[in-house]
């Protein structure tokens, strides 16, 4: 069978096709079809020719096979130091082979590559720091994912995820109407407790345009309400766009670069349309990576910068705490052991380690803040990054991957893990479910609202003193 009905080289561009793939529970038929999927060698060769340039070639070629990357990889460590989990081995035995054979590879081999690319690497980029030659295997695995996606060898959930972006310009089926309604609903819900609170939609020339993760709109609308409360509390002149509000990119995890571009373009179009002074994104790591770090390159901006300054939520939080626009009630500062999860996507890959620690200094009593080890740029992946959390086929491997974070958290003695990243938050929730170590986990927003000093004029009439 050259191409299957569900599993093929065609991206999901229609709602109908999306529904078909979605209704194949667990991807049973999809993976069955994948076993028969032909490799389009010519297409693969053309891709290699067009995109495998000197950086990647040199990385593959110059690797000294010294093995220093082994200990850098948490997946190597949690899998009993299995030599097959050494980053250099993982990339040389997959992408390296494809290149060596100039694309003349079999279906079976590409399915193996898929397993390695999505269950043995979370693209956390940590190995790149330990390689004397500066070989970033996370970047190479991202590239490999792109090749595999274009050949149809992509986990079922990520084919759907990138299809969602293509069809809905969101990682979940949230339409513009759904989104606007959710905002109105959340504004109404919050109004009683927070008189005057609004969620302004499509306001031009605001100070801040807020963008978020579609699953907040779909499953955690209270997160939107919390963002609104904090903007309200700090007196921000803010808005959300009716279109271009979704900043995540499951297509980045899938290696579907075309969908990445489509998605981030809607956000940048909203920026051009509404002309905010700057954009603040939600507490999500990969969304920040996609919209503020990689996005400019996908849409072809030669300066590599988004159309307006695009900051992560933690940067905004640090700023309002620093300037005193958000005041924390000293009595409510956290007085239990707390640790902080550094998200790879904006700490290792965007240098925000000091910013999150500055926030901790305002909300946690100093003696109660315990760092993980290692931390900051050298922290380990939560265990579920790069799409790992979302792929059912690799759930057993993902659960093993959580062990590293579990042990890091246990070593801090923390009762609460602050995780300003959706992926990390999920992974930490799942590791508590899996291993029951008795921890709580949280985004910043609910903690801040709990601890904030509310000025009298913002309180409901009966509460005002």
């Amino acid at each position, binding site marked *: 069978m050259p191409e299957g009905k569900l599993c093929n080289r065609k991206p999901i561009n229609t709602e109908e096709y999306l529904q078909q793939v979605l209704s194949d529970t667990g991807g049973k038929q999809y993976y069955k079809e994948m076993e028969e999927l032909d490799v389009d060698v010519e297409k693969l060769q053309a891709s290699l020719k067009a*995109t495998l*340039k*000197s*950086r990647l*070639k*040199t*990385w593959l*070629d*110059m*690797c*000294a*096979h*010294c*093995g*220093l990357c*082994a*200990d*850098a990889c948490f997946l*190597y460590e949690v899998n009993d*130091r299995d*030599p*097959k989990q*050494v980053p*250099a*081995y993982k990339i*040389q035995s997959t992408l390296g082979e494809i290149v060596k054979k100039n694309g003349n590879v079999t279906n079976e081999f590409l399915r193996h590559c898929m397993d390695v690319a999505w269950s043995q690497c979370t693209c956390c980029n940590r190995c*790149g*720091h*330990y*390689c*004397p*030659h*500066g*070989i*970033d295997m996370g970047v190479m695995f991202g590239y490999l994912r792109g090749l595999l996606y274009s050949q149809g060898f992509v986990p079922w959930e990520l084919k759907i995820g990138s299809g969602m972006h293509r069809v809905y310009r969101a990682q979940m089926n949230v339409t513009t109407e759904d989104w606007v309604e959710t905002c109105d609903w959340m504004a109404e819900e919050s109004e009683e407790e927070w008189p005057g609170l609004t969620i302004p939609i499509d306001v031009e020339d605001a100070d801040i345009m807020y963008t978020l993760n579609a699953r907040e709109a779909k499953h955690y609308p209270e997160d939107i309400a919390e963002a609104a409360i904090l903007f309200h509390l700090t007196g921000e002149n803010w808005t959300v766009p009716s279109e271009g509000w979704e900043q995540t990119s499951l297509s980045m995890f899938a290696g579907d670069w075309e969908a990445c571009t489509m998605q981030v373009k809607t956000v940048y179009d909203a920026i051009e349309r509404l002309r905010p002074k700057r954009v603040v994104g939600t507490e999500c790591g990969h969304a920040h990576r996609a919209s503020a*770090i*990689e996005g400019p*390159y*996908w849409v*072809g901006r*030669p*300066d*590599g*910068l988004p159309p307006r300054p695009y900051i992560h939520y933690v940067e905004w939080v640090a700023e309002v705490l620093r300037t005193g626009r958000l005041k924390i009630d000293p009595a409510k500062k956290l007085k239990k052991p707390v640790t902080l999860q550094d998200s790879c996507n904006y700490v*290792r*890959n*965007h*240098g*925000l*380690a*000091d*910013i999150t620690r500055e926030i901790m200094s305002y909300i946690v009593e100093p003696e109660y803040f315990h760092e993980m080890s290692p931390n*900051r*740029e*050298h922290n380990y992946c939560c265990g579920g990054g790069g799409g790992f959390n979302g792929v059912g086929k690799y759930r057993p491997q993902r659960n093993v991957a959580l062990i590293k974070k579990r042990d890091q958290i246990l070593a801090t003695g923390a009762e609460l893990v602050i995780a300003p990243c959706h992926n990390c938050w999920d992974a930490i929730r799942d590791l508590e479910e899996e291993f029951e170590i008795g921890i709580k986990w949280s985004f910043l927003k609910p903690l801040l609202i709990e601890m904030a000093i509310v000025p009298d004029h913002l309180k409901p009439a009966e509460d005002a003193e």
Partner: protein
Amino acid sequence: MYEILTGPGLWLAFAIAVIGLVVRTVFYIQGLNWKLDRVAYTAFPAAGAKGAIRSILAFLVPFGNHSWRAKPGFTVMFFTFHIGLLAVPLFLEGHAVILMERFGIAWPSMSMGAADFWTVAMLVAALGIAMRRLLLPEVRIVTDAKDWFVLIISVAPFLSGYMVVHQIGDYNFWLLAHIVSGLAWIALLPFTKLFHVVGFFWSRAQLGMDYGIKRGGMKYKSFDW
């Protein structure tokens, strides 16, 4: 024979090495692509240069980064091997003599004692590196014939040179072996993993620019290698 090898032979080996390394460097730089690599290489020259230099220095200085500090044993072997490998042939009295005789260049040299010390240290380090390749599963799995070839071709001029200097065994045989393996090492620089003599700098600079420009270097602190 000796004259041909150390005269035109030396020139030829150097010419191949220099031209080859320059050509590969040009291709490397030409092949960098801001859009595919997703690094705005030329948009921010100052941030790029700072990132590149920091990234190179972090790995050029012993224990200058987290990776070296995590593996002190390997780091000592690594630097001993590389210092010996570069310093002994560059500053050996016997080589300075050739430079003076053939080309009239006055070249500084190290004492024979220092040369002996670094030669032996380098050979011991090489043995350690070889043992590592054989014994550690995480290194063994990635090791292939090319890695052994590079190690052997790098060690050969030192072993043979040591035999020559200390007149162990057949002097003429070891001298010939020394010159041939030394010239081969030079001529093979552009065509093998030895390319890293310059490639190390380009590749480290590239990742340094990536971090310096795109991955946080312009926003907050420089990356803590």
